[in-house]
């Protein structure tokens, strides 16, 4: 079943350029059908999962490729499968203006399968495998436009990702050698007897592995690939560089920290302090860069950098509450950011404008898009009643609860970042709705909201932002259960 789920989108993707579609709409139906079917299968699996591990193949020694459904995979797979059908729908409309559609959908759909592979991986090696694969299938998407900018961006993306994986690999080795198994077990698998007095070396390796996986999660100083990768078509930037790829990095770090090294081993050590400082710095750094950036998508990308570090901040608190906070933000941020990215994409698609200062007065021409953008902006700021508030609340509570003075500083970082978020997001909104007294709107007279394929995902995401903000109890309870290891 799991294999099926992972392979279905990959095969569907490969079929796109091979099948002779007579009309574009046939292709759309085929792809959307495949993606929706897969999402349904994923949800079916999540609701009827069993504890057993599915072994696909033996690697060297006792290393193997195997899959399992546990709490974290439910969260991540549920998230990804929830977003993908909408993103695909959006992509159909968006891609009408771009070339090489088939290649795009080939890799775009394949990425779905690979991401699910990361989610369902039962051990570190399997995850590492799909993690590398994810880099490879997404590179063509970054490179899609084949402009010089895109080539440079994809190059950088590759260097960073593969390089990061190289260091994460060292962590993998440590777990293989010093752990009792490489399977993910909440609480860690390190065998203290084997470690002996090598604690410090292991901590050093942890930090290295953290930074290695952190590359995908855009931890400072390895974040510059993310804004550059914004040259990709918006469905890619939105879904992959705000959700699938970068969240895989965060997901991998959570796996590494909570399920492999174990929080018992790490909590209170210098390694925790180090990574926490890095994460806190990134939170503020990302926001400040976003403030300076005038390209809309790059601004959002910097915002993603900062928000990813929120997740990591929760993760490096190394308490169950911290994990719950991290998971909450992992899910909620995905919805908020994809919504704002899709708005940015809709703006680019309808008007070809890509800089903040060009947006004057567009709010009245595209009320739906900008209205939704405002909601997502407010949510990202953490206005109560919207999703962002809840996730920040959970993170902050975990930080306060951890009794770690540094974490208190982290709470302050969260709030500083919220303030900066307010400025860089709302300045867009203000521009769009308050273009100035003598604004001449003749240049944008014909601009209007995009069609339903673009708007439907946006509306759905907005509904979820509000729903999560107002009535988050069931889902947050679920997250807490996951963090406590009940699934």
């Amino acid at each position: 079943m799991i294999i099926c789920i992972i392979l279905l989108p990959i095969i569907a993707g490969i079929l796109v350029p091979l099948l002779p579609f007579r009309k574009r709409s046939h292709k759309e139906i085929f792809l959307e059908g495949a993606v929706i079917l897969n999402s349904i299968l994923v949800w079916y699996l999540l609701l009827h999962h069993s504890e057993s591990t599915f072994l696909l193949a033996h690697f060297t020694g006792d290393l193997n490729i195997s899959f399992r459904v546990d709490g974290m995979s439910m969260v991540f797979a549920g998230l990804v499968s929830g977003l993908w059908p909408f993103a695909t729908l959006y992509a159909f409309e968006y891609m009408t203006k771009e070339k090489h559609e088939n290649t795009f959908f080939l890799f775009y759909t394949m990425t779905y399968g690979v991401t699910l592979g990361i989610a369902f991986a039962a051990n570190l090696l399997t995850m590492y495998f799909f993690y590398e694969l994810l880099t490879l299938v997404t590179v063509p998407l970054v490179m899609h436009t084949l402009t010089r900018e895109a080539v440079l961006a994809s190059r950088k993306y590759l260097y960073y990702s593969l390089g990061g994986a190289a260091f994460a690999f060292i962590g993998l080795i440590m777990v293989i050698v010093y752990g009792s198994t490489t399977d993910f077990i909440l609480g860690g698998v390190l065998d203290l007897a084997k470690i002996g007095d090598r604690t410090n070396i292991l901590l050093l390796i942890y930090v290295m592995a953290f930074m290695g996986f952190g590359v995908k999660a855009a931890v400072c100083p390895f974040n510059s690939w993310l804004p550059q990768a914004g040259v990709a078509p918006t469905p890619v930037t939105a879904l992959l560089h705000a959700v699938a790829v970068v969240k895989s990095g965060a997901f991998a770090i959570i796996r590494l920290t909570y399920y492999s090294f174990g929080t018992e081993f790490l909590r209170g050590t210098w390694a925790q302090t180090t990574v926490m400082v890095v994460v806190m710095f990134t939170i503020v750094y990302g926001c400040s860069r976003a403030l300076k950036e005038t390209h809309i998508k790059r601004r959002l990308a910097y915002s993603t950098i900062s928000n990813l570090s929120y997740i990591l901040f929760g993760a490096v608190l190394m308490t169950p509450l911290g994990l719950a906070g991290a998971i909450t933000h992992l899910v909620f941020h995905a919805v908020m950011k994809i919504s704002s990215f899709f708005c940015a994409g809709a703006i680019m698609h309808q008007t070809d404008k890509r800089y903040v200062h060009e947006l004057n007065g567009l709010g009245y021409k595209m009320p739906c898009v900008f209205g939704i953008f405002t909601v997502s902006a407010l949510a990202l700021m953490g206005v109560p009643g919207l999703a962002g508030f809840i996730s920040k609340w959970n993170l902050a509570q975990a930080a306060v609860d951890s009794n770690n003075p540094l974490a208190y500083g982290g709470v302050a970082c969260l709030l500083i970042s919220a303030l900066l978020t307010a400025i860089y997001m709302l300045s867009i909104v203000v521009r769009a709705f308050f273009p100035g007294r003598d604004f001449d709107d003749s240049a944008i007279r014909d601009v209007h909201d995009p069609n339903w394929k673009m708007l439907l995902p946006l509306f759905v995401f907005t509904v979820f932002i509000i729903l999560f903000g107002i009535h988050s109890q069931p889902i947050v309870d679920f997250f807490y259960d996951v963090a406590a290891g009940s699934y």
Partner: protein
Amino acid sequence: MDFVCNFPFFSILISLFSGTICSVLPEKAAKAVNRIVIAAVGVMSGILLLYLLGTGESFVYWMGHFPAPWGNEIRAGILEAGMALFFCIIMYLSMAGGAHKLFDEVEESKHNLYYILINLLLSSLLALVYTNDMFTAYVFVEINTISACGLIMIRQVGRTIEAAVRYMIMSLLGSGLFLFGLCIMYDLTGHLLMSNIKESVALLIQSGEYQIPLIVSVALMCIGLCIKSALFPFHAWLPDAYGYSTVSSAAILSSLVSKGYIFLLIKIIYRVIGFEIFNNTRIIDVLFVFGLLGMIFGSLSAIKENDIRRMIAYSSVAQIGYIYMGFGMGTQAGMVASVFHILSHAATKSLLFIAAIGLTEVSGGSRKFIDLTGAGYRNKWAGVAFTAGSLSMVGVPLFSGFISKLLFAQAAVQVEGKMLAALIVLGISTVLNAIYFMKTVIRIYATTGDTSYPCITFKDMKVHAIVLLFFIVLNIILGVSSQPIVNMIEQGLAMFA
């Protein structure tokens, strides 16, 4: 003694004599003979391997039935047979893959010579693999050098001659040092057969006499072989030699010739000096350090390069650094990793060279990156193959490179003092590998804008494409089902002792 036991001797002899025959045959026939010999040797090695796996013991073959210490011996174990088989496979594929370029690169009249050299090379490699006699080893080292030199030079372009001269000088220096070391060793022990030397060395160590000359002898042999296998900083000859020779030569040289020397070194370590004794010397630390430096500097040079073939050549320097790093760890696991990397690198590097030629072909013969832009679209097979090779080099799971990285890292963890250095350099080196290989991969897929160069389809390059496919499959086999191979290496190394 079974008939199969004659195979090592046969294979060396066949390839040696077929070289002689080739000189009088017409070109086409020479080619056929060459291929058949390689294939036959491969088949024989395969049968031998199966036989050895069956018996589970190595055997010693007396040449002319003279017992030691007078006679010359051949020894065959799992590792030897496996190595010979693997060398044949790579060689066959490389020859097949580069065949269509031979006409462009080598004068018509020299084709026969080319096949002669290849056959000689094969026989010398096999001899290096199988021999149990140090002096025989030396002789074949020289034969190997000469034939390799010829292979470089045969494409008579200005740079190749210069490269060949440089290679000749460095190689001779290397074999000279090896000879010195051998002389001292003979002086100390009075033997030339490996097993006999080993006994004497063990006695010497026990007695505590002649320690320094012994170390000097070992060091000289090591350095000699290091130079010949282009360990950093003795790699200056390599980029030109690999970069400008014919495709098949480059593939064979990079993946086999240097590996032959390295394999000889492994034999010396295990069969002549003794693994334990060797590990107690400081030499392994030196090898370790130079291995690490090679991993970094080789890659750095590769990054600076803007010629695809030279870049791949420089990458060899880095990969050889990996192998020596494995030696330097001084553990069984490190050695296993090194031997595996010999295989994995050979499979990958020849793939890259052969794929690179496919790419340059559709870029007006230019090897500069700027001309290669978009080559991956013009020659799809070569593009895919190059990508696969690059991914293997970077160490992406599914490919052989990942397994060697895994083995190296696992080995490194067992060595307390060298663990961090090895792991960190492994990481950095992966980053550097990613930089230059991925840069190239992105380059060849960058844009379809320039269509002034022709495209090549499958029909135009059937053989080439199939060879590439075989190489990819080989890589993936090494990458996916590595466990039997690793087991075999372990058994083989155990037989050495």
